[in-house]
């Protein structure tokens, strides 16, 4: 049997329509449910916060006077300009602009102390000027200050 007759004889139309409807409805329900998950989670969090606040009001906790956090130690070396003189030949051996990783590798090869920290401080102190895409140039005037 061929053609439309074969489709009808094997219940093809019904299978196709019902099958398509099941797939559509299944995925539509799933889509709806997952679109609500974050709202339900948000509601759950809000409810928990509300109950926490309510219980805090009922039984206020004794006030704890927090100690002032200790001031962060100054991490950058104080002799940054001197270090810059040390780093300058390395910069000159690189192309301009250069990548920090290249400079880091050179500094590490020469056993300079704490190259990562020093480069970070160079950036903060504007010895290294970002040129975008991870490339930098050396700021000569800053070194002379």
């Amino acid at each position, binding site marked *: *049997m*061929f*053609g*439309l007759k*074969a*489709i009808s004889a*094997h*219940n*093809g*139309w019904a*299978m*196709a329509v*019902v*099958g*398509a409807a*099941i*797939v*559509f*409805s*299944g*995925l*539509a*329900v*799933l*889509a*709806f*449910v*997952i*679109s609500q*998950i*974050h709202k339900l*989670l948000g509601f759950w969090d809000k409810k928990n916060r509300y109950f926490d606040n309510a219980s805090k009001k009922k039984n206020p906790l004794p006030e704890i006077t927090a100690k002032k956090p200790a001031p962060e130690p100054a991490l950058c070396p104080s002799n940054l300009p001197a270090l810059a003189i040390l780093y300058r030949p390395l910069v000159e051996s690189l192309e301009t602009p250069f990548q920090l990783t290249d400079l880091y590798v050179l500094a590490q090869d020469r056993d300079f102390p704490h190259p990562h920290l020093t480069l970070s401080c160079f950036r903060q102190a504007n010895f290294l000027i970002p040129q975008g895409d991870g490339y930098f140039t050396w700021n000569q005037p800053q070194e002379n200050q």
Partner: protein
Amino acid sequence: MDLFLSFLYNTGYLLADYRQIIMILVGCIFVYLGVAKKYEPFLLVPIGFGILVGNVPFFKGFGIGIYEDNSVLHYLYFGVTTGLYPSIVFLGLGAMTDFSSLLARPILMMLGAAAQMGIFFTMLSALALGFLPTEAASIGIIGGADGPTSIFLTAKLAPHLIGPIAIAAYSYMALIPVIQPPIMRLLTSREERLIRMPDMREVSKREKLIFPVVGLLLCCFLAPSALPLLGTFFFGNFLKECGVTDRLAQTARTAIIDTSTIFLGLTVGASTQGDVFLTTKSLGIFVLGSVAFSIATASGIIFAKIMNLFLKVKINPLLGAAGVSAVPGSAREVQLMGQHEDPTNYLLMDAMACNCSGVIGSAICAGVLWSFLIV
């Protein structure tokens, strides 16, 4: 001399017939496409080499061939005929899949549903061409563009067609860069292709954790026959997201999926013995497979355009093409097509959402068809 002659008569050189030679050439083409052109190499290389293995001529009755009881290949093929390998592949797929984009934009799930229309259209076409309903359903599932799902359903409904259907499904998946772009261009205007998708919201860890549980329960309560595929799929995803089974998830998405893909590809390839494979039915399956794939792509795009009639924030209709579950090939094509029109337009994450829903949709389709036709 007699010993030498009897040995000679048992060699492949004298036993070969033209169908095996044709299939060996097909196998070489698959291997070439996988290795040299890098078209889906993880699929085409095992399948292509499997075709070579399966078409080496041998003296039947010695327990050598894949269709002979007690042969090694027959035991390996057991994983295909029982639907074991597809189920394991789905476990690995689940452990690989990130549902963030789908959770951020659930509406894209409807494109995954729409792209499954290719399955039903092709099933009707196959019925009209005289295939039995079980065969028609197995051919139609090629439109889901999901190799493991096609093999799973065919193993259940029409095991004699596993070879051609698996080869057709994987071939068309590898040919996505050839099949989909012309349909995408034909059905969309430039303005539509330029539509940008808004930024996605951040998806929390808890949402990603809840999704596999909700997805499993909703989909498998609706179509319990999809359990062997979706059960492992969502389980794999839960392993990935729960945060305490990283080692299991890592194994599922590497060693386990790789092992099953190797045996799946090799045995499916080896099942294409020339005398079994080269029939008019196989030719019909290949033609219908390409129809299935094209209709699936087109129906996703057309449905996206229909959705745009009702949506305030329009969606890029190219995303409909990613509703087929060929992960990540079709999503990549959508991204490439979108960037071809506007290099700053990034559609990949949205396309992956459609892809993921396509995987779920085609597994549900397989479950539904199996339950319709199970005797």
